[in-house]
């Protein structure tokens, strides 16, 4: 099977979530204090900002 084509401009990152690495589509980044968060829509449908692994 051919790999899924990533939409232009979409960035995918792996985050540590629920004890495992999950790859998500990043819709933006936010910096707060010492932390940088990546934005994506989580499984629960909520806009979620997860701490960036970078």
């Amino acid at each position, binding site marked *: 099977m051919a790999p899924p084509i990533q939409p232009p401009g979409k960035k995918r990152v792996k985050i540590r979530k629920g004890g495992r690495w999950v790859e998500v589509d990043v819709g933006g980044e*936010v910096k*707060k204090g010492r*932390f940088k968060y990546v934005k994506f829509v989580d499984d629960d449908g909520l806009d*979620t*900002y997860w701490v960036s692994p970078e």
Partner: protein
Amino acid sequence: MPFYEGFVYFARGLYWWLYETYCQTDTTASDYGKCYQRVISEAIGVPLFTYTGTTAPSCVNDNTCIGIQNPPWDYPVTLKDNTSIGKQLILYKTWMILNSNGGLVVDKTKCGRATVKTNAMEENLWFPFMFKTANYVSGSGPNAYNPLDNSICGLNVFYTPPVGSQIVAEWNGATLAMKIIVDINMRNQPNIYYALYAAAYYAQESSPYAIIPLDYNNDYVPYRELRNAFGYSYNGVDQPGWNAQDMISALKDIFPDRSWAVFDDNNQILYLYNLTPDYVPDWLIEKLSPTAMKVLQPPADATVAKAWLDLLNERNAQIPPQAELP
């Protein structure tokens, strides 16, 4: 609810059992009786060591004992900044010597007294830790020479003539407490010599927080309702509850049109209601260090979110900084 424990202590003055302190005990040395504080701070007050002689330390003779000028009324020591109401155990002990040429701190029969209080007790408890011994050293514990009246203070809560080893410090406990305050109670009197040691062990279960500043006068009814649903603190930052999802449900019901946040301490997620991360101040992120922020509902009205942020910043600015010992 993660459970953790810790141990903290602080000390000021000179203490013979702390490695940072070095006292010259060689009677042939020119600086016999002098003590030096290597790391913690400058030497304060009289040298404390296992005193076995009757001669005053040299700092008394050459008038180099250091007195404290402009001491504050008390030194509050907050262990955990109100983050776990109802789920915390604190064991603590204090040890101190103090004196005043104003005669207000000691009453001529005791070497020093400390006030220790917790939010659970809300009262001052006086612990006369150091009783004056006549002319001998009590037990095998730490003792202090008091240059003001040429006496020896033995750390002995219940003064009895020493027979063998004695317990020289008591551990006191406070359950359901948020913090302890070690109140040295110097009464703003100058020329007080003191040394202080306080140690505390705490065990604590962390809590989820609701983050919504309310005003008791303007929001009396919701304030009370929130207070009954889970803990409410004056600063609006650390209102602990038991279950983050229950708190979210309650807050949606009580405050559907306001902005608020809930921090899930279990998953380290900060839930935002009528908020986006843009309105979350950096200091709150630094304080909570959330792994993630989730937007339950973006703000329909930016002024509501802005009001939450402004009030939160205002309350946070009112949280007194922890006092520092000189």
